[in-house]
C-alpha cells in the first residue's frame, strides 16, 4: 500500500469533467468515459469486465468530485457511492480470483458469491429506480381531492350511543401507557463484537512512540500487540495522521517494510480529539 501524496492525473481530469450532463458523478477511465450510473449498468450487463475497472481511479475521481461540490453537497450521493463502491470492490475481489472449470465445490461457491454480488447490486438499483415511481405517485395523489365531509347531524344521531367504562384513574393509566416512549425494539448485537478499540487512543500511542524515536517501521509500532483490532486501529491512526501531515512514510517495494517518520511542525493534543472523526459512526 503506497498512497501517493500528490494528486494523480486521473484526479485532475475528473475535476474538469466532474459534472456530467445531468450534474451527476462522471468517471473517466481508460476503458470507459461517462456517467457513473452507466458504468454500473455496463458492469451489471457484463459488457465491461469488472477486472478492467480500477477502483482506486474511480475512488480518486469521486473524492475530487465531492470536493469540487463543497461540503453542503448532497449526502445521499456520497453514501450511495459508498454502497456501490463496496459492491464494486466485492465484485472485483471475486473477479480477480482465478476462474477454473466448475470442478470443485470451491469454484462453484465462488461463482455463486459473484452472482450474489451482482444480484445485490441489481437489487439495490431496482429499488432505487422504483422509488422514483413511489415519489411521483405520492406527489400526484397529494393533489387529488377525495370527498370527505362531516356527517350531517341527522345521520350522527343514528350512531349507537357510546359505551364508556373508564374511570378517571383508568384514563390516566391509559395516558401513561400512551406517553411511555416507544423505542422501536432493538435486538442488541454488541455481544457479537470484540471490545471496541479507539482509534484516538491508539493514535495517542503512535504519536508518543514516533515523537520519542523520530522514525520507526510499522512492525516496531505494533511490536508486542496481540489483538488484531489494535493492529488495525494503529494502522488507521497512521493513515489519519498522514492526512494531518503529521508523519510521512516510505515503502520501497510493495508489501515491503513501511517506515514512518514524524514530520509535524506544530502538533498539539487537541489535534487528537478530532482525529478519526469519520470512524465515529
Amino acid at each position, binding site marked *: 500500500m503506497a498512497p501517493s501524496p500528490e494528486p494523480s492525473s486521473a484526479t485532475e481530469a475528473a475535476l474538469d469533467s466532474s459534472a456530467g450532463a445531468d450534474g451527476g458523478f462522471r468517471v473517466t477511465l481508460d476503458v470507459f468515459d461517462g456517467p457513473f450510473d452507466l458504468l454500473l449498468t455496463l458492469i451489471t450487463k457484463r459488457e465491461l469486465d469488472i477486472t478492467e475497472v480500477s477502483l482506486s481511479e474511480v475512488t480518486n475521481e469521486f473524492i475530487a468530485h465531492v470536493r469540487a461540490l463543497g461540503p453542503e453537497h448532497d449526502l445521499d450521493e456520497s453514501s450511495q457511492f459508498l454502497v456501490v463502491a463496496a459492491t464494486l470492490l466485492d465484485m472485483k475481489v471475486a473477479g480477480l480470483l482465478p476462474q477454473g472449470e466448475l470442478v470443485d465445490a470451491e469454484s462453484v461457491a465462488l461463482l455463486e458469491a459473484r452472482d450474489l454480488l451482482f444480484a445485490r447490486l441489481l437489487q439495490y438499483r431496482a429499488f432505487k429506480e422504483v422509488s422514483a415511481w413511489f415519489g411521483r405517485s405520492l406527489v400526484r395523489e397529494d393533489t387529488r381531492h377525495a370527498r370527505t365531509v362531516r356527517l350531517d347531524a341527522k345521520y350522527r344521531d343514528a350512531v349507537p350511543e357510546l359505551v364508556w367504562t373508564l374511570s378517571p384513574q383508568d*384514563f390516566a393509566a391509559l395516558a401513561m401507557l*400512551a*406517553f411511555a416512549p416507544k423505542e422501536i425494539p432493538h435486538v442488541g448485537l454488541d455481544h457479537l463484537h470484540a471490545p471496541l478499540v479507539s482509534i484516538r487512543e491508539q493514535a495517542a500511542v503512535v504519536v508518543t512512540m514516533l515523537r520519542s524515536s523520530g522514525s520507526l517501521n510499522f512492525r516496531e509500532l505494533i511490536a508486542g500487540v496481540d489483538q488484531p483490532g489494535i493492529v488495525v486501529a494503529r494502522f488507521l491512526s497512521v493513515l489519519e495522521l498522514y492526512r494531518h501531515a503529521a508523519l510521512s512514510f516510505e515503502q520501497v517495494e510493495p508489501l515491503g517494510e513501511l517506515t514512518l517518520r514524524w514530520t509535524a511542525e506544530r502538533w498539539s493534543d487537541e489535534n487528537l480529539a478530532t482525529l478519526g472523526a469519520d470512524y465515529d459512526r
Partner: protein
Amino acid sequence: MTDDTTSEFASDITRRLEAIMMILDEPHSLVSLAAAVGAPVPAVRQAIESLVADYDGMTGGPKRGFELREVGGGWRLYVREEFDDLVSDFVGTQAPSRLSQAALETLAVIAYKQPVTRGQVAAIRAVNVDSVVRTLLSRGLITEVFTDPDTGAIHYGTTDALLVNLGINSLDELPHISPLLDDGADGFAGESIR
C-alpha cells in the same frame, strides 16, 4: 358570442361547480361560489339551476341519489331525502358502540397535551392517527380548538362530553400522571403535563 360558445362556457362553469360541491362541508352562497369558480354570479345562478334540474332527473338523465339544495342562503350537496333511512342504517352499522384501544389512547394523549396537533399525537403514539381523530371528532369527544395561522395545523382539545363520560367537572380533576414521563422523547416542555 355564438350560441355554441355560450353553452360551452355555461357547461364549463357547471363542471367546475360540481367539482367544488364535492368538497363543500357547509352551504356556500352564490357570491362565494362565483368567486370559487371564477365566473359572474348570474352565470353561476344559472349553472346551479341547471344542476338542480339535472340531479332531479328533469333533463333526461336519472334522478340522482343526491341533490343540490339551498339551505340557509347557501348551496350544498345532500343525500336525497328518500335515502335518509338507508344512510342512517349504514352509519349505525359502521360505528361500534365502544372506542378501540387506539382511539382511547389517542384521546388520553389529547386530553393531557391539549391543545395538540394530529402530527404531535402521531409522533407520541408512533402511528398515524388520522382516522382515529376523525372518529373522536364524530363522537364529539374532541373538537378543533384553533388553527395555527402560520402552519395551518389544526389544534385539538377535549370537550365537555369527555368530562361527562369521566364523571368529572373540569380537566383539573384528571389524575396527575407521573412527572417521570415529562422528559420523554418528544420533549414535553417543563411541567405541561398535568
